[in-house]
């Protein structure tokens, strides 16, 4: 039973305050849904959680342990899906999956990875396209591929999903939420930012618009930080 906690987080992007005094908690098996207007800071928060951004203020805890203490451990335990699919036009879906699966789980040997990749391709409905260059994939097919990487990532305990449903059809969304339930059932955590309804049973919701009005004092803090740095 691990848990992931953020404490009075402040986020500056290019010296512009996005939110401040933000708290959240996710326990294993739990899910957190990030909502808010465009530009409210959902993606920024996800990047904070992933350790891709460093908070301008506040702390991030994993099992009462400061994340920044051991970033490598955190990297290993999380899977991050950004707005971009990071699909290389020249590689085939299978190559893409094999690479990412093995990259995430260095132990995995080539045969197992290939088997797992086929499984993932079938899940994503890309089996027929497995050998074509990703250049030819449709938007949704790319997104499916990007999701498959995470859905079949054995090592990741924390899933950070930035608008996972983008370009997905109803069918794919169904597959995704099944996968999410499965992951949570296994004690995994999910944090997802989305504008569409994504059914995450009994998920906590964090509305970032709430923090918009706190920006001004974040700005002051920003000024302070500026003063010091």
């Amino acid at each position, binding site marked *: 039973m691990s848990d992931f906690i953020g404490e009075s987080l402040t986020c500056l992007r290019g010296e512009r305050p996005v939110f401040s005094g933000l708290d959240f908690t996710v326990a294993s098996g739990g899910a957190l849904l990030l909502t808010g207007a465009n530009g409210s800071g959902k993606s920024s928060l996800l990047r904070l959680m992933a350790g891709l951004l460093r908070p301008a203020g506040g702390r991030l805890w994993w099992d009462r342990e400061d994340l920044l203490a051991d970033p490598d451990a955190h990297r290993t335990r999380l899977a991050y899906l950004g707005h971009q699919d990071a699909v290389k036009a020249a*590689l085939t879906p299978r190559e893409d999956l094999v690479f990412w699966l093995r990259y995430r789980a260095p132990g995995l040997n080539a045969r197992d990875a290939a088997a797992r990749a086929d499984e993932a391709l079938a899940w994503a409905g890309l089996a027929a396209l497995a050998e074509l260059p990703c250049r030819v994939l449709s938007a949704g097919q790319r997104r499916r591929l990007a999701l498959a990487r995470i859905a079949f990532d054995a090592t990741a305990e924390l899933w950070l999903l930035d608008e996972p449903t983008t370009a997905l059809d109803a069918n794919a969304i169904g597959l995704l939420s099944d996968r999410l339930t499965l992951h949570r059932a296994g004690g995994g955590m999910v944090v997802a930012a989305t504008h569409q309804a994504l059914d995450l049973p009994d998920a906590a919701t964090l509305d970032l618009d709430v923090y918009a009005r706190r920006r001004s004092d974040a700005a002051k803090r920003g000024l302070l930080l500026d003063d010091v740095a």
Partner: protein
Amino acid sequence: MGGFALILARDLRLALRRPTDGAVAVAFFVIAACLFPFGVGADPQVLTRIAPGVLWATALLATLLPLERLFLADAEDGALDRLALAPNGLASLVLAKAAAHWLSVGLPLLAASPVVALLLNMNAAGYGALLAALLLGTPTLVLIGAVAAALVTGARRGGVLLALLALPLQLPVLIFGVGAVEAALVGDPVGAYLQVLAGLLLGALVVTPIAGAAALKLALE
């Protein structure tokens, strides 16, 4: 298979499939050399005289130019985030990408260099030294360039910057590389030069991954 080998394999694959800057580099290397006879006029003495310099200068540029996109491509399509989010450290990422770049640009360059030397009718005595020097020198050039590339990823004028940052550090390699070849041409021993080049390479292997990793961390912010 560790992250290093994986990235290496992936980047090599991409290099072989994508409109590859690497291939341009080699084409560029050969073409650049082909151009000089036209430009300089085919006067053999002059050509022979300048061959080592032209070879090294063009080789340096050929490795340097495609480096701008070493991390940029991954940064633009979001792959860099994911690559950073893995047990494997950033240092191994830098090394792997540098290695892939060298294999896809440096090696072909090496293979092409005798041809180029021929075109510039360089004296046969220099070939051995040239190959040895390039073999020891080009990896250093790439490693240094990789750090510069990491530093300028996301910068406004990455291109020039890259050149500006990398060249000062790369100059020694050029100087000793040319030195080796010219020594060989006049029949002096080249050992000392090659030793220096080897030393530079070792130094680069130690320092650049650390520096590159530090630079990449910034690029992710």
